[in-house]
């Protein structure tokens, strides 16, 4: 005879996500409504004291969210918040003449060019806790793994999505630039389409 197992009580929290206000662009007051999707809180209120080891949300190959907790190991931060390099910055070239700079090692007729990267407006980007997609995170598909997955970072090619679960499709936002104007698309939408699977590929999972 075995003793019956009594299921453990589930821990619940009474903490609810509440709206909060912030001031953007120096003067505009905005009420922010946090939303929770698949356990990830978007537009959450920032902490009063910024925590350098604040957990952030990464994505698995199939697009499932997983929380990463940074830690300090031998004085170095490991698994820290991702660095996006200049992928989301705008390059701006400045030309300086000798009269403007008066540099001691510059010829009077010389022109100096400098490329400056301007940070993007992070007013709304900062509310997203999930890792952003950059070309650095593209994967490669095809038999020879030589076809870039642009503009997608997740999900990986031939991932498996289960019914009832939530996954995140991520893409590099600057991929959608208008070919003439060069402006990044302001709005996008996601489509799902059926494809016919060949008999050769059908049912070959795990073989």
């Amino acid at each position, binding site marked *: 005879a075995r003793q019956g197992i009594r299921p453990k009580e589930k821990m619940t929290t009474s903490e609810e996500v509440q709206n909060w206000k912030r001031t953007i662009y120096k003067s505009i007051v905005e009420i922010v409504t946090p939303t929770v999707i698949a356990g990830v809180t978007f537009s959450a209120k920032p902490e009063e004291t910024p925590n350098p080891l604040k957990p952030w949300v990464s994505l698995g190959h199939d697009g499932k969210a997983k929380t990463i907790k940074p830690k300090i190991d031998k004085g170095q931060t490991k698994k820290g918040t991702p660095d996006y390099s200049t992928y989301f910055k705008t390059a701006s070239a400045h030309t300086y003449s000798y009269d403007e700079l008066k540099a001691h090692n510059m010829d009077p007729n010389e022109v100096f060019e400098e490329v400056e990267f301007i940070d993007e407006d992070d007013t709304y980007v900062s509310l997203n806790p999930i890792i952003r997609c950059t070309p650095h995170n593209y994967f490669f598909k095809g038999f020879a793994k030589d076809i870039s997955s642009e503009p997608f970072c997740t999900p990986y090619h*031939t*991932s498996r999505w289960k019914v009832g679960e939530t996954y995140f499709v991520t893409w590099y936002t600057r991929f*959608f630039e208008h070919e003439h104007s060069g402006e990044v*698309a302001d709005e996008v939408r996601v489509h799902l389409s059926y494809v016919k699977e060949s008999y050769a590929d059908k049912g070959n999972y795990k073989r």
Partner: protein
Amino acid sequence: DVKGAFFSYDWIKNVDGLQAVEVKEDWLQGEFERSIVVSVQPRYIPEDEFDPLQNGVVLHITKGSRVFKPTKEQLALDEAGITNGQWYYVALSIPTVVVIFFVFMYFFLYANGNNRDFTDVTRNALNKKRRVLGKFSEMKRFKNMKNHKYTELPSYKKTSKQN
């Protein structure tokens, strides 16, 4: 609106570059697994010009894992001694019926041992084995054969020396 798409989300801001997708069972259309393509349409491309298969990711949506592991609830029931043991009764009853049949058969044959008479069957079978060929001269094949009749072998008078 887009050709070939079975589900399209609303327009969203292209700020974060992400879209949460909750997989619905209706998308499988009664099948266990289906292959789909996920694609993103920017606003500046009209619906009739957008091809969802051009820049898309192929993936599979499934009802669940093909290897069905016992759930936590099932494990808890097993631990509590509550099992669905129908297969156990079926597996046990089949050999039991066979054993009972053979025991009954043994006693039936033992009881009717004296009343059995298979002699007519056995006699016919044995007679087939002991078939008599008949006379050589009456055989069809050798009927017309001119065979010398049996005569005694020549005998000689014994000499005195042989005696």
